[in-house]
Each structure stands twice: as C-alpha cells, then as structure tokens.
C-alpha cells in the first residue's frame, strides 16, 4: 500500500508541474502572433521636453565615477525627473546577460540602457528598444559619422552614441625608425622585431581581422546584408598575410593565446616592437617599463588601399518597457551634450562621440593623442550589423584562428566561414 500511495502523491505533483511547464511554453507560443521586427515604438527629439518621472540608467561598472557625476549633474538641473545609476558588471557579456534578463521579463527597471554597438541589431529586432531616428537626425552633424552608423539597423537609428572606441598601433621608437604607414611595412619589420595582437579564439580576433579586411577594401556582408562576401580576393589576401605573419614569426605563436591584457604585457616587457590595442593602453604605457620609448599611431593603410578600423564603444538606448521614456530621452540628450562629453573623456579616457569635443582644451590635456583618436574613430567602420552577429563573429574567429594556426589553408578557412555565415543568416 505505502509505495503505491507515495507514488500517487508523486504523480499528482508531477502532473501539476508538467502542466505549469506547458503553460509557460504555451505563453511563449501565443506571443508568436507578432510578426514584424522592432518595438514599433518611436521617440522624437521634442519628446525630451515632456520629461517627467524618475528613471534608471543601467550601464557597465562606473570605475572612474564619471557616470555617477553625470547623474548628479542631471538631477541638479532637472526638477521633474531624477535619475539613478545601476552599475552592471565589468564584462560586456555579463552586462548583456543582465540587461537581456530584464528585457525578456519586460521589466521597467532599466529605462536607459548602455549597449555595446554590436548588440544594437539584437535589441532592435527583439523590440526591446525605442526607435530614436528623429532624435539622431535632429543633431546628426554633431556626431562623428561612424559613431552614428554604429547605432543603425534596418535603416533606422536605435540608440544615441555615448562613447566610442577604435584600435591603435603602438610601436617602440627605439626599434622602429619612422612611423609605419602600411601594414606590409609593419609586418616586414616585425619579422625581426615582432608584432603582438589579440589572436586568441574570441571576439577580439574578429575585430583584429576585420581591421585589416576593411583596410584592404573587403567586407563580410554586402551592403544589403544578404550576400556573404567573406571569401573575396581581399579577404584571401588579408588572411594569407596574417597566417604568414604567424608562420614566419612576425607575430610570435603566443599571439594565439593573447587577449588584450596578455598582448599589452608582452609589449610592455619588450617581447615585440609593435602592439595593436585599444586607447586605454596609452595611459598605462606612460608608467610602464618602456616609458619614453614608444609612440602611438592610427592603424596604418593596407598597401594600395586605405586605412580603416573597427568601431567599438557604448550607445544609449531607451528600453521599450520604460515607464517614463520621455524622461529617459531627456537624460540621454543631457549626457551626450558637449559639456558632459568633456567630463566623460577627461575622467574615463573613453573617446567621445562629438566631433568638437576633441578640440576642447581639457580633453586635449587628458588625452594628448586626441587628434589621432578622432582620426581613428573617423576611419573606423562597424562590425556586421545583424541580429545573428554572435554567430557571424564566431564563424569568423574560429576559422581565422584555424588558419593562423596553420591547420587550415586561408582559402578553405574563408570558404568554411562563408558557409557558416550563410547558414547563420538563415537562422529562424
């Protein structure tokens, strides 16, 4: 008797649980009736005038205190709306996870979201953020063009640029005679003096590869985003160039394990004459073992083509679930004004998004390489803008990695990347 009774209790409970599980899933299915992408919600520039209500800004960790200072200044000048800062983790992946959890639950907790440029397409296509095209168009000329491009998806703007980023070439002045002007020059000299970059199998490798690909005039996707062009002759040249770099020792094999940190340490310790890295290295290099023996320059040209780069940074988007979108917009507008951009640039050393901020005396003092910084941002281009960007990037870095290791020929690595990106574009 006893086992059977316990079993029946168990069964009854299990049935309840089973029903609950189906209920949850069924809810998901019912939402499937919405078929168009995007939230369908828009904000226009004038909406910022009706700012009322309190809002919350969810962005990565405020390591320098610049973000909380901005919040304080906003609260001082506004009486109808008060802002609050929620600091997300330092790692970009963790920030995305935190935001996505709230957005999936339609939580109104975060009104203003600090989003990495590569999340724009995902958030926009999921209908999580407001279309702010009108806001951008009303002051487009203030921004560096490439930063605005990084907030664009499906012909509309989904976020306001907040800070930006671009790669640089650092080099040792005691080993390199003159400022390098082409990648070919760099790699040629690197055969004896070495270059280090981010060659581990992760997002950083996608960026480093795309910088060279964009310079050579290559693309990942066609302009309409429908055709995959990653097996172009330009891409073949670039990947062969990079693979040869590892083969002939211009880039030591150790780059295959390097992320930002390790490549920087190797350069600081004299293991290489050249380093490709982000602007943050500038401040650290001033007190490093090689202080006084290095210089910074924008990424060089590809021989016979142009100089380019890949744009990074954070844009500010407004959550579709915000209870006070107008107040959120007025906050976004406030922190992207010249005065706040100066605060951000001088405090965080993050490159500002407004063209004129780079001419400000305080900014020039905090970032002595401001002119190069602006040039680097201006020549940079966004990574492929697609809701399946993570899959595209994975296809790029896994196959590029395999070619750098010498396990696959550049040609077949790119063919494989192409077919993987093609199936990624067909994802449901």
């Amino acid at each position, binding site marked *: 008797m006893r086992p059977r009774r316990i079993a029946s209790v168990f069964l009854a409970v299990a049935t309840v*649980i089973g029903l609950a599980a189906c209920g949850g899933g069924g809810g998901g299915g019912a939402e*499937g009736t919405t078929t168009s992408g*995007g939230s369908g919600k828009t904000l226009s520039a004038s909406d910022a005038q009706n700012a009322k209500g309190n809002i919350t800004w969810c962005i990565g960790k405020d390591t320098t205190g610049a973000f909380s200072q901005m919040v304080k200044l906003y609260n001082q000048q506004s009486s109808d709306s008060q802002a609050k800062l929620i600091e997300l983790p330092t790692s970009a992946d963790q920030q995305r996870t935190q935001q996505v959890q709230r957005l999936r639950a339609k939580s109104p907790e975060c009104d203003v979201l600090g989003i990495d440029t590569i999340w724009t397409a995902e958030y926009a296509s999921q209908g999580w953020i407001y279309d702010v095209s009108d806001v951008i168009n009303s002051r487009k000329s203030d921004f560096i063009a490439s930063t605005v491009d990084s907030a664009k998806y499906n012909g509309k703007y989904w976020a306001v640029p907040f800070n930006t980023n671009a790669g640089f070439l650092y080099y040792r002045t005691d080993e390199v005679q003159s400022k390098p002007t082409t990648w070919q020059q760099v790699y040629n000299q690197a055969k004896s003096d070495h270059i280090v970059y981010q060659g581990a199998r992760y997002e950083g490798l996608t960026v480093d590869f795309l910088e060279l690909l964009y310079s050579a005039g290559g693309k990942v996707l066609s302009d309409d985003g429908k055709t995959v062009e990653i097996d172009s002759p330009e891409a073949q040249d670039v990947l062969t160039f990079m693979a040869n770099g590892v083969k002939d020792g211009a880039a030591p094999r150790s780059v295959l394990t390097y992320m930002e940190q390790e490549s920087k340490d190797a350069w600081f310790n004299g293991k290489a004459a050249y380093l490709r890295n982000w602007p943050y290295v500038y401040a650290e290099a001033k007190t490093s073992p090689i202080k006084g023996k290095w210089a910074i320059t924008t990424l060089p040209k590809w021989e016979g083509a142009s100089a380019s780069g890949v744009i990074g940074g954070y844009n500010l988007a407004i959550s579709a679930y915000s209870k006070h979108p107008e107040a959120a917009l007025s906050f976004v507008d406030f922190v992207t004004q010249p005065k706040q951009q100066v605060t951000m640039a001088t405090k965080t050393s993050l490159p500002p998004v407004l063209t004129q901020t780079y001419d400000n005396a305080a900014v020039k003092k905090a970032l002595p390489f401001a002119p190069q910084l602006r040039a680097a941002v201006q020549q940079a281009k966004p990574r492929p803008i697609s809701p399946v960007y993570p899959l595209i990037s994975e296809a790029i870095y896994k196959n590029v990695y395999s070619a750098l290791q010498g396990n696959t020929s550049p040609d077949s690595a790119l063919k494989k990347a192409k077919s993987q990106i093609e199936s990624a574009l067909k994802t449901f």
Partner: protein
Amino acid sequence: VATVDATVSRPRRRRSGLSERRLAALMISPSLLVILLVAAYPIGYAIWLSLNEYSVRVPGLSRFAGLKNYREALTSSEFWSAVKTTFLFTGISVSLELVIGLAMALAMHEAFKGRAILRTVVLVPWAILTVVTAMTWRSIFSPDLGFANTVLRTLHLPGAHVVWLGESPYALGVMIFADVWKTAPFMALLLLAGLQVIPEDVYDAAKVDGATAWQRFWHVTLPLLRPAILVALIFRTLDALRVFDLAFVLTQGANGTETLSLYAQQVLTDNRIVGLGSALSVLTFGIVMIVSFAYIYFVGGNIRTLAEDT
C-alpha cells in the same frame, strides 16, 4: 508493540480520518513539492524549450520543432567532438585524481607530527574557487612571461618554447593538470574518511599472519576502502562531465578543450539559439544521468554487497 498500539488507538484514529501512513505522506509532501519545483520544473522546462524553435530576429516568434533540434545536435561534428573532449577529460583527470588522492589519503592517515597541518595545507587547492584556479594556471602557462616556461628555460629543459594553451594536445593537458591539482585533495578527503573506519585489528591480524606492507595494502586496505572509492569516483566523474569554468577561462574552448557544457553555453547564451542550446543541455544532462545510473547499477549493487559482507 506496533500492533498493540494500533488496536488501542484505532477508534481515535478513525475519528480523525488519517492513518499514520497518510499523515506521513502528507507531511513530506511540502518538501517533495519544493524539490519538484526546484529540480523537476527547470528540467521539464528545458526539455520543453528544446522541442521548440525561438526566432532570433522576430520578437516572441516561436514554433514547435519536435526533435529537429536533437537531430541538428546529433549530426553536428561540434557536438561529437565536445563529447569526445568531455570523456577524454573526465577519464584522464578522474583516474589521476584517484591515484594521487589515494596516495595523499594514505599519507594523511599515518600518525606523525604535523599531521593536522598537512591535512589543512593539502586542502588549500580545493578551497580555492575554480575560476581563480583557472586564472592562475592561465598566467602560469602563458607563453612568454609565464612561470612554467621561465622555469623550463632556466633549467634548460625541453618545452620552454611551447605555447601550452595555443596547441592542441597541450591545452587539454593543462586543463587536466589544473583539475587534478584542484580536486585531488577532495578525493583524498573522501578516501581518508573511508580509511578511518577500517578497524585497526584487521591490520593487526594481517601482521600476525605475516603479511607485508604491500600485501596489507592490496588485500586489506583496498578491498575495505572500495565503498569510499566508489562514492568518490561517482562524485568526481559527474562533476568532471559537467566541466565548464576551466575551459572557459583557460582557452574559451580553443585547441580541443571545448566541453559539452561550454558548447551548450555558447549556443544558448552567446548565440541565443534557445531551442538548440536547450537540446544540447538536455543531451548533456542525459549523458550525465546515464553515467550515474551506470555507476549505481554496477557499483551501487557492489556497495550493498560489501555492506552485507562486513
């Protein structure tokens, strides 16, 4: 006693309408319910997710996919290479941990001065978070400035120029090494507990019979330690099959270190392919379940016989 008791109190029980058994079932049902909510509901939900497809481009769009996600997972070469990596990692690391853990347990079991200190020191690696362990080993095995290569170079040993985490067999080797370093103490702790319940007189009897130290270990210690060994093996195997953090920190899955959990996480979290990612998680769960049932089937029976024998 129970019968007498039951006859005496029967009238009163009838009135209340609850038998002892029913009352017991009723009383454990809240905790049963909590267990089901905490364990069964997420598992059931993951299975449900794995039977559907969720659009990455259209908000809220989903469709029932049946077993399509499983078909996709089981026909992908990435899945099978992850299975291979996971089992290779588990097999090698758990075997090494057993041997080393046993040696450590035997050493700690001996009575000598400073035994308490040794026991504490040995447990330090196990007390450190795996992510921290992984970061440490990552920097130790970093190619140019890492501790490992510097030592090899100074001692003029081979391998000073190997990029440990950037080459195929070595990366998994480092991962196994880090795991053994961290969890051998845990194995030792479990085995030490087993050693302590073996009665001293068994050894005295063996000594009287003229058994050598080796014979005592082989014919007395090992057979009596078997239940503890088996429990330790189950714990470690199931843990090792789900390994994620080591691979994630050391190599991000490059160079033959992509384990099942890491692969499932990449598909589910990074790439947001919810259906396929859930199918991969369910498959991982299934594999772990099969292995644990296999252990209970072959080994669990063994524990019972051993317990009956003694």
